């Protein structure tokens, strides 16, 4: 039995301003094994990106309060000092961002930006860092890699920029890669290329990946396991096939029903009525209750506890039976 790589226990993130106190992440728990790929699924504002940033403590310290436990590769991230934090960032854990245009320093050549990180973590010269950057560019299939090292970010196309971003993230062979909607800003055809590349690299390098997306198709393509987030909570987790085939939580079911797959033509897509709740004033019960087709009076009273009707599957919904007889 190997030890889990990531253990997140009851993680909450509050953004505190003078006017309001927003709970962006509200009691999130999950564990990940080495080499596992997990998709975080959810709509904008559900707390996916904030969770990712909290894992690396990248949120502005003055304005955010993080509570709960985060352990990555056996280390308590919350307890790390600045030095330990810097050694973790980019080396043990690295992140790919949604918008590769703004994620690179616009006035430094991409090759030098990668070389700087490699030189920093590996303690090698800048020149050796650039040689590593060249290898990485070959790894992520950037054509004319030698020439592209000297390019500035604005001189690369969107797809190439994201490949360069992946090269930067993989430069120190991280154990955990956090991919924050890495394909959202790209053209559809480029999206698929980047996705295939990421899956291939994950298999070759054997790292764990948390892949944040709002695209069910992407989740089906790349994930072992899916965690569905709604209003700062994980409302359902499970193996990707089971979850997509037989969703437990009404929200997951609603998401599935509202995507294009094999519906007959001429039929309108189903939508989830209503809008996500105001994160400043969450309802006392289930956050999804106001939009839920299966809502009952008990849903409005308390936050549903996690129930596990089958091994590996968890949902936070009162309508999900605690354990089905055949698994008992």
């Amino acid at each position, binding site marked *: 039995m190997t030890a889990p790589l990531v253990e997140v226990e009851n993680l909450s993130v509050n953004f505190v301003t003078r006017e309001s106190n927003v709970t962006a992440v509200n009691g999130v728990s999950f564990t990940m094994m080495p080499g596992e790929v997990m998709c975080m699924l959810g709509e904008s504002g559900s707390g996916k990106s904030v969770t990712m*940033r909290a894992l690396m403590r990248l949120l502005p310290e003055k304005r955010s309060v993080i509570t709960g436990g985060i352990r990555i590769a056996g280390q308590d991230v919350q307890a790390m000092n600045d030095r330990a934090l*810097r050694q973790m*960032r980019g080396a043990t854990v690295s992140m790919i*961002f949604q918008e590769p245009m703004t*994620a690179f*320093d616009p006035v430094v050549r991409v090759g030098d930006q990668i070389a700087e990180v490699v030189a*920093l973590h590996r303690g090698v010269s800048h020149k050796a860092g650039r040689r590593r950057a060249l290898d990485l560019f070959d790894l992520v299939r950037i054509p004319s890699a030698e020439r592209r090292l000297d390019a500035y970010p604005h001189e690369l196309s969107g797809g190439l920029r994201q490949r360069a971003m992946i090269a930067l993230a993989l430069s120190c062979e991280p154990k955990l890669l956090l991919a924050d909607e890495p394909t959202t800003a790209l053209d559809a055809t480029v999206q698929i290329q980047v996705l295939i590349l990421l899956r291939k690299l994950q298999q070759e390098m054997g790292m764990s990946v948390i892949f944040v997306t709002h695209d069910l198709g992407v989740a089906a393509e790349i994930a072992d396991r899916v965690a569905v987030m709604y209003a700062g909570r994980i409302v359902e987790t499970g193996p990707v096939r089971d979850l997509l085939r037989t969703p437990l939580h009404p929200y997951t079911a609603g998401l599935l029903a509202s995507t294009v797959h094999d519906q007959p033509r001429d039929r309108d897509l189903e939508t989830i009525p209503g809008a996500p709740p105001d994160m400043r004033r969450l309802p006392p019960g289930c956050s999804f209750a106001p939009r839920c087709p299966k809502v009952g009076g008990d849903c409005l009273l308390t936050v549903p506890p996690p129930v596990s009707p089958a091994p590996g599957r968890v949902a936070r919904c009162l309508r999900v039976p605690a354990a089905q007889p055949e698994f008992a």
Partner: protein
Amino acid sequence: MFSYILRRLLAAIPIALGVSMVCFALVYLAPGDPIQTLLPPDADAETVDRLKRLYGLDRPLPIQYLSWLARVAVGDFGRSIATGRPVAEEIRRSLGNTVLLASVSVLIAFSIAFVMGTIAGRRAGSWIDRIVTGIAVLGVSLPNYWLGIVLVIIFAVELMALPASGMAGERFDPTSWEHLQFLVLPVFTLSMIPVGIIARTTRSAVSEVMNQEFIVTLRANGLPEWRVLRHALKNALPPVLAVMGLQFGTLMGGSILVETVFAWPGSGYLLSKAILTRDIPVLQGTILVLALIFVATNLIVDLFQSTLDPRIRRG
């Protein structure tokens, strides 16, 4: 890069020509007649005409402009009406003094203001930001001729620690305190406004860059804060340099009042004398040279910016 430099140089030519036209014409639009200041009020019409012919003032304006331009192009600015000496020589002598004063002031202002602005920009909204902004507003708002006079009263008249005005001698020697002490008060006075403007520009540039997404990327890759700041400053520098160039240009021509207060024998002082005596050749020559320096400064700043930020070269 080379084609960018060439393009910028070519673009500067029409600007320089336009500038020369404006400063030639401005003098004629201004009230007052140089001939009248030279001659006694009861001079007869014939003497006036003769003198006008002598200085070429009787010919049509475009002709005057072209012949002036042709002579200027070879460095002949004519002779001063007031002193009779070649204008080129007067400008050369005074310009060096002004360049000295302006460049020392701007460099000192930049060193202080860039640090101030960086500290404030990193902590936008904090108490230290408010202090820096306060100093910056104060620097911009104090009338510098007034400040100059106050400083003279305190340090020269009351404390007798520094000289009140002038320079030590014809040739400036940067190694001797005898010479340097004359710079202290004018430089302090002149750097007040650039400190304010550069500090505010730096502050806003740094705070804007620090909010950009790539700063998070740098931190996410484990870069220590000083390296993050180095990336941020490289991004924030181009607009600050642009403002610094403008300030240098302004000090080159705009220090008339301060140079007069400190009797600093520079181009501002020369200009103010030329204005009072309606010495048109000196006026035209000085304004033209100052304007060309302004254009050249902007050109240099542009080129410098484009080496810092490769995105500029495409425009």
